[in-house]
């Protein structure tokens, strides 16, 4: 059971080499992201700018928030197909509560606060139901969340009375939403310097177009959510138990982990980060839309997979999902800047997903090989 101590020189060499390859396969997505950024910076006019990077980060927040919760679910060998519509449900609920409270004469700030709270709370419901179905009723995650996909979609449209957006948001409310959703902690205005929190009202439009947002609020909020859930997954007992369940549910049960409760909480977390994405979507676009996260669902799953999380469970981390989301956002923006038809996005992202899975398989094979040297 000991590593052979008398390795030949050639063997030792191959060990070193495979460690290098191992390093590459484990962090390929980081290098890939870096490569993409360099490529687009060299080829796309205006790609390499603070303004554009801030815009890419802001674009990535929707997918990133969804992929955070999705990572937890996928690590337990599950999948949540319903979160696209959970984003919409949360967005629509928040918009309606804000509108109705503001219209009935409440303070706009109060209306917004209660609205956000309501949106996040409602978002927990699909997660709770998904979790109970998967953990207690033993419905396969794919089926349970596919059912929830339809239910939440319908619920979101019921709340807009079948419309594409929640109608009747007052101008004051929309302006307040915009200030946060499109605001930044710090601005840089060429030739005028830095401004905190708000732009000077007298800024001429030609300068306004050159303003760079250094710390957009959606990015800061998303970064906080990333930090919290990355910490929980990587460092806490709860996170460890998530990996145990993904590795072997039987082992988890026998070691006394309350697997059912844990799974329910994980599906709620997944719904919750989608709920945050929905609220943020409302703030950014000032319209509560049922289909806010529809297109982002598959991108979020793609981000999780590109980030190295194993769809069979047991492996993965939040940083992977973050990098995966950034890769998708960089591709989207970069292809637009290169003036390539947006249809190509789908093809390129698809190819990247397949590469990701292949690299992960290569990595697993390599680990086995190393262990048997």
């Amino acid at each position, binding site marked *: *059971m*000991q590593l052979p101590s008398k390795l030949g020189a050639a063997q030792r060499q191959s060990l070193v080499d495979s460690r290098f390859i191992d390093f590459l396969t484990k962090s390929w997505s980081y290098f890939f992201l870096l490569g993409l950024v360099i490529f687009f910076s060299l080829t796309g006019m205006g790609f390499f700018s603070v303004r554009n990077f801030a815009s890419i980060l802001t674009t990535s927040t929707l997918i990133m928030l969804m992929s955070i919760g999705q990572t937890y679910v996928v690590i337990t060998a599950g999948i949540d197909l319903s979160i696209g519509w959970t984003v919409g449900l949360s967005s629509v609920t928040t918009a309606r509560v804000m509108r109705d409270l503001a219209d009935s004469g409440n303070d706009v700030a109060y209306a917004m606060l209660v609205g956000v709270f309501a949106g996040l709370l409602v978002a927990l419901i699909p997660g709770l139901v998904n979790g109970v179905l998967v953990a207690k009723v033993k419905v396969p995650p794919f089926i349970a969340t596919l059912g929830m996909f339809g239910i939440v979609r319908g619920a979101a449209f019921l709340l807009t009375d079948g419309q594409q957006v929640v109608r009747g948001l007052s101008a004051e409310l929309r302006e307040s939403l915009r200030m946060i959703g499109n605001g930044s902690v710090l601005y840089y205005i060429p030739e005028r310097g830095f401004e905190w929190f708000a732009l000077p009202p007298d800024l001429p439009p030609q300068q306004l177009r050159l303003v760079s947002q250094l710390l957009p609020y959606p990015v800061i909020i998303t970064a906080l959510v990333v930090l919290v859930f990355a910490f929980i997954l990587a460092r*806490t*007992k709860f996170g*460890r138990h998530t*990996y145990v369940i993904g590795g*072997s549910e039987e*082992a988890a049960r026998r*070691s006394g982990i309350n697997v059912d409760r844990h799974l329910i909480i994980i599906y709620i977390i997944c719904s919750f980060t989608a709920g945050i994405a929905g609220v943020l979507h409302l703030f950014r676009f000032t319209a509560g839309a049922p289909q806010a996260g529809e297109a982002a669902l598959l991108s979020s799953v793609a981000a999780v997979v590109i980030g190295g999380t194993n769809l069979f469970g047991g492996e993965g981390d939040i940083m992977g999902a973050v990098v995966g989301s950034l890769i998708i956002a960089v591709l989207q923006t970069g292809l637009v800047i290169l003036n390539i038809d947006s249809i190509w996005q789908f093809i390129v992202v698809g190819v990247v997903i397949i590469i990701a899975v292949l690299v992960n398989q290569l990595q697993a094979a390599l680990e086995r090989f190393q262990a048997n040297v």
Partner: protein
Amino acid sequence: MPKAKPEPVLVARGISKHFGGLTAVDAVDFEVSAGEVVALLGDNGAGKSTLIKCISGVYRPETGTVSFQGADITGHAPADIRQRGIETIYQDLALAENLDVGANVFLGKELTRRLLGLLPVTDDQRMRSEAAGALDQLDIHIPSLKQKLVNLSGGQRQAVAIARALYWQARLMIMDEPTAALAVPEQRKVLALIRSLRESNIPVILISHTLHDVMAVADRLVIMRRGQVVANIPRAEASEELVVRHIVGAT
């Protein structure tokens, strides 16, 4: 290895268990003494597994009593029986193969420390070093404790499962076909592990089909046939031929 009148740690008396019309275990008496390796033998359906499950609490025996270290544990819940130190190591080992040795020894009972005196985080370093200590006691060396279990050999995984049981104060180890899925050199290592358990005065119930293994490590052979114990013989008095005759019921 003759011992001077060892105290039985586990005593099962008159255990019976039926499944419908089938008598799986029929008024069986079974004892294990401290530091003794007892092999439980028998053909498929002889009642070995049912008897073991009556001891580990998976089944509640219909008649009879089980006592462990002087306490009556008949019909107690599996978790309680494990708590008292009867550890069953199943063939699938109940390990999380995607995690390292430390994580597996502390599965579900992770050690934590306070990060910045505030946030409870898993103490991976300490778990790893404690696990290394437990493996050392068994004289097992695993090249890298950061290695995921999926990358370890079958014998090494078996060792991790045993080390975990020992670390959590197992007082009696039940091992169900521990060598079944292993290559020959790995089988030898597991047999060596069983011997070192005996040396640590931890009794082992070994369920095995491999007569060779049994003859190599067991102190006593208990042979079951059709729900009954048909032979209970010290290793020294057993020959392979005799054992096979008992198993198949040839007289």
